[in-house]
């Protein structure tokens, strides 16, 4: 499961996780989604980009 907050800065990234995945599936570019959702720092961006869901 995705950590609730960004490990580095504490922004609650998990709240955007489902939306991010949904939009990714709909064919949007990762960069555009992150920009649109307001993730400016690379610490928060990597939380979403690099998360691998192993618990299915």
């Amino acid at each position, binding site marked *: 499961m995705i950590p609730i907050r960004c490990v580095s800065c*504490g922004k609650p990234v998990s709240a955007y996780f489902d939306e991010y995945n949904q939009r990714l599936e709909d064919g949007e570019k990762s960069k555009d989604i992150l920009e649109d959702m307001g993730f400016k720092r690379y610490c928060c961006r990597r939380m979403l980009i690099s998360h691998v869901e192993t618990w299915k």
Partner: protein
Amino acid sequence: MFNMEIEVKSQNDDELVLIIRDAEIPFVNAIRRSAMMSVPKIAIEDVNIIRNDSSMFNEVLAHRLGLTPLVSSLKHVEGMALADECDCNDFCPKCGVAFSLNAVGPKEVYSKDLISSDSKIKPVYDTIPLVKLKEGEELKIEAVAKLGLGKDHAKWMPTTVCAYKQYPEITFNENVEIDYDCADACPRGILKGDRRSKKIKILDIEDCSMCKSCVRASVNNYINVGYQENNFIFKIETDGSMTPKEVLLKACDELGEKSDKFIKFSEGGNK
């Protein structure tokens, strides 16, 4: 004494950027620390796990609940007592808010499934995934949210980013030949070489991170990046539990109170 000037650069629900002029580092830093460490916020502290069939350990689940941001704006938590200052034994309505969480699988449990005993205090976001349940698994939890301070645990920090930088200052050495390469080196695209007017334009100096990539790229020291000693760009970003403005006001109040205490103490009034 100094004569401080404050200008709001931008402000929205969870971010506030200020430009502070004619202040000093110790003072600005005191406000920063106060905002991070001394502003009370509510977060889940005690978790009573009655039943947890999921594959997630109780400790991990409790930790996730604790980190879930809860609405703590000043008017909602006003009158509540800090957990260790309340005179009750365990918890009472004055210092805690009860939450319950009941779910049966198959289901993905979200923060919106947390049911609060106080309609005003609830998770900021409804979409935070907490745990997954398979067919036949059950979750039964009681939790108590308490008021606390950031110095005790990060879950009680209202701010995520709370930082300042000194106001950047970019100067050009007019005695040497203009060096357009330094403009291309800027990772933030702040510098723009204009070959017609033989100048390098600065687009948004407040966005400069003072990384000095431009200085390193320039062979003849054409550009120099420094900062203004007493001017600051101060940014407060919160996790949504309260607005940055509230955080700042409360931080200043707390700092004032601490200073009063200190003055009284050093005058020998409070032995």
